[in-house]
């Protein structure tokens, strides 16, 4: 059952070959069995999931036919869920239960989706390996000694291991695409503004975007159909018609113009990863696409610009965790300053503290122009690079990450960790959509092909990804761990 895609499971539910309760119970058992090893969930909401499943079955019996009704899902623990703990991977919010649902959660609930639980993540979405979680690292189901990527590592690992048909993540600098790549699944970061950020705990507000993580592009299309759209509660969400993302999946690719950014195939790229990506590009050529090299000349400024802008916003966004109204509060504070200092010192992990310090510094008087303002100028140049490239080509392709999943504990130096996001981070700065699809292996570790499109080109990206998955079977490979725990 857990080998099937979401689309296949939906068809089975539709034909009454199985009930949502059976399906949900199956995945809950899978989690029960496998997650002690993987650690991909922070909370498992067994009772609520079964209640929701029964309700979905009843709704179906009454004639509710939408595709997602009765499908089990997992949510990164960054989406606020009414009545269920939302920790954001942090000790700071270990006791936090939101009195509201994120808009994404609201939409999934309305569609009849079942919440299996909340998945593990790097604390406040800051990290590329899921090792920064207060709840411990997540293991990569393809190789238990490797990281699953981050920050949406729990969501990626859970989907790859067959603990859920699909999950939702957020992507601020690659946090959907890089773990999708490391875990051999399909992960889409939509255009900034396509999905409401309301109720998603903010890391860097101008970059954060939620998206689906599933087995196939087709699954992602169905999930995006449900969560996309304008939300009056998020001023940065865009009022633009939401197309049916599943409709264009089968459009032929003949005449598609693919650009390969030379900067994405340079130093630091693992040759085996490069080989897999170039093989994938050849598949597209066989489907009728043309390929040319393009240049994104400001690519090497993306990481420095990101590590000014994202921490600056984070330092401000995370100021609300002061021990006064919710979240961790130190014991017996002596005075106000002591309350602030100890609550924050005890509640936040090292990477979060590091980024708050960087952000506080770069926004300080005397540094603002040199850092923040400059970074915003660079950001405009990076965006312009992409827009220029999209004048000549339809999509860009390259690796999602310079390497496959690395060993747990391998990257001690923060900067080497930051460099992990070299191919994903510019995409967030430009606000464009990107998708990672499975495109081979290096040893037993998956390689992700990243496909980028211009603003609001999600339908095209999903079409391009889907066609690849019609021509290849990388997305159908399953880790041995999934079978061992079956």
């Amino acid at each position, binding site marked *: 059952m857990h080998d099937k895609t979401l689309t296949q499971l939906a068809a089975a539910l539709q034909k009454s070959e199985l009930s949502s309760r059976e399906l949900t119970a199956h995945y809950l058992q899978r989690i029960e069995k496998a997650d002690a090893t993987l650690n991909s969930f922070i909370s498992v909401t067994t009772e609520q999931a079964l209640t929701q499943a029964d309700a979905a079955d009843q709704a179906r019996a009454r004639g509710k036919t939408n595709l997602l009704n009765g499908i089990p899902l997992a949510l990164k623990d960054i*989406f*606020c869920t009414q009545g269920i703990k*939302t920790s*954001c991977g942090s000790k700071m*919010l270990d006791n*936090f239960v*939101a*009195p*509201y649902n*994120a808009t994404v959660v609201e939409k999934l609930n309305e569609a009849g989706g079942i919440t299996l639980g909340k998945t593990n993540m790097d604390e406040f979405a800051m990290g590329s390996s899921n090792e920064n979680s207060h709840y411990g690292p997540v293991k990569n189901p393809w190789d238990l000694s490797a990281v699953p990527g981050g920050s949406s590592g729990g969501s990626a690992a859970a989907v790859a291991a067959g603990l859920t048909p699909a999950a939702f993540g957020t992507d601020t600098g690659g946090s959907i695409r890089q773990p999708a790549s490391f875990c051999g699944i399909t992960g889409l970061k939509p255009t900034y503004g396509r999905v409401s*950020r*309301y*109720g*998603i*705990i*903010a890391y*860097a*507000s*101008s970059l954060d975007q939620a998206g689906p993580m599933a087995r196939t592009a087709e699954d992602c299309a169905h999930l995006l159909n449900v969560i996309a759209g304008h939300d*009056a*509660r*998020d*001023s*940065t969400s865009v009022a633009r018609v939401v197309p049916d993302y599943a409709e264009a999946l089968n459009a032929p690719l003949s005449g598609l113009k693919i650009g390969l950014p030379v900067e994405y195939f340079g130093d630091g790229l693992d040759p085996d990863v490069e080989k897999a990506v170039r093989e994938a590009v050849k598949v597209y050529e066989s489907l009728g696409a043309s390929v040319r090299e393009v240049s994104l000349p400001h690519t090497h400024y993306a990481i420095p610009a990101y590590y000014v802008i994202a921490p*600056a*916003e984070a*330092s*401000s966004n*995370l*100021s*609300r965790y*002061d021990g*006064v*109204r*919710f979240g961790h509060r130190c014991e017996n504070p002596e005075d*106000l300053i002591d309350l*602030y200092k100890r609550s924050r010192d005890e509640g936040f992990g090292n990477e979060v503290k590091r980024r708050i310090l960087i952000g*506080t510094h770069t*926004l*300080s*008087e005397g540094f*603002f122009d040199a850092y*923040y303002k400059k970074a915003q100028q660079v950001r405009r140049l990076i965006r312009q690079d992409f827009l220029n490239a999209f004048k000549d080509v339809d999509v860009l392709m390259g690796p999602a990450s310079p390497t496959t999943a690395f060993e747990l504990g391998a990257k001690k130096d923060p900067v080497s960790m930051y460099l992990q996001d070299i191919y994903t981070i510019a995409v967030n700065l430009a606000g464009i959509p990107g998708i990672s699809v499975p495109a081979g292996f290096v040893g037993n570790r998956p390689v992700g092909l990243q496909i980028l499109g211009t603003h609001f080109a999600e339908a095209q990206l999903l079409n391009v990804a889907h066609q690849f998955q019609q021509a290849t079977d990388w997305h159908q490979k399953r880790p041995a761990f999934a079978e061992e725990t079956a």
Partner: protein
Amino acid sequence: MQWETVIGLEVHVQLATKSKIFSGASTAFGAEPNSQACAVDLGMPGVLPVLNEQAVAMAVQFGLAVHAEIPEVSVFDRKNYFYPDLPKGYQTSQMYHPIVGPGEVEITLDDDTVKHVRIHHAHLEEDAGKSLHEDYHGMTGIDLNRAGTPLLEIVSEPDMRSAKEAAAYLKAIHSIVTYLGISDGNMAEGSMRCDVNVSVRPVGQAEYGTRAEIKNVNSFRFVERAIAFEVERQIELIEDGSNVVQETRLFDPERDETRSMRTKEEANDYRYFPCPDLLPVVLDQAYVDHLREALPELPADKRERFQSELGLSAYDANVLSASRSMAEFFEEVKDVCGDAKQAANWVQGEFSGALNRENLSIEQSPINARQLGELISRVMDETINGKAAKEVFQALWNNQGKSADEVIEAKGLKQVTDTGAIEAMIDEVIADSPAQVAQYCDAEPEKRGKMIGYFVGQVMKASRGTANPQQVNKLLKEKLDAKL
């Protein structure tokens, strides 16, 4: 040495929107603590601000009223600092691109001269909550009802040169915002709060002196008192050979003094940056024009019209245009009675006096403009005399009748103009006052005019105030002079 005072004001005006600037929670004053704070106001994780369009419209209206530039684009910034009643750890404000650009306010001074004070800019921001230090046994209570209430901060140029000018400026701002209906202007409830920047310099010096910012100056009276104290303090410091320190000071109305809060060195670095959760506010010309057309007549225009069209003195025009409710009341009285000067006298005299005595606002007045206008009409058409008019006014005030006519009728106050009836009363008074008559006849002719007052009084008393005083005067004089 002669010193010149230089003053600039930052006035925070609470906008009278129904809901908060970034959330749907109510802004009503005086509710149970924390009963009007939603997830957005509490700064809960994941929630986002949504700008209240009404607050934008009100800010623009203010800008138009002070002839300010309205920039096409304005931007919200975050002002970052930790404080328990600041839930998000930042205040959403406008640092670099405010919604209202440079403008100008007309103020009227005590000698009725008019001065122009320049507005540097005005920006929108959210209010913080309140820290409650009493009754919590060593702890601090936090009430976030006020958090997120929309404020318009109006920053003047340092154009004022005396405490009186500063107070006049504050009154002018008060009058503009209440005219526009964008604030209730209630200083006691904190709807208008004021920070004062004060410095002194030798007369003739071009550079400004070092300034102190005085916080918590929350009434017209306190503005004058705080400045008076501060100016004296600064002059004393300099004359003693010491220096004024740039600092923030707190006005203590109990002790009538200002105290140091923090110096420049202790000042926060607020780390302003554009709020990524809010889009820039873009105002198209049609929207601004639409608001401009809908502006009511403003105090300065009214003042001008009251003088040029109605012939009122500068003083009267100023007093009667000070608030929209006063001006509207006056104009209705004037329309009913048809005489602006009579209306002005009555509104500023008897009517304002009665309001002040009972500490009532115009809205709370027991007598309405129509009643007062009709009362004045009855004086003007000589149905009643001035003395009776006061009695009618009091009766209407006390709700002893619906209209002037009703009271006049019920109390029999209609003026007696029948010559025969008046003559009869005069004859009686003269007959009853032989001594006074003799005195009158013996007096020097130029003193008789004064002495006649006694007889007038007696006749009026006999008529219970209803006799026409002019007639009484004339007839008395004839009859007394006949006895010479």
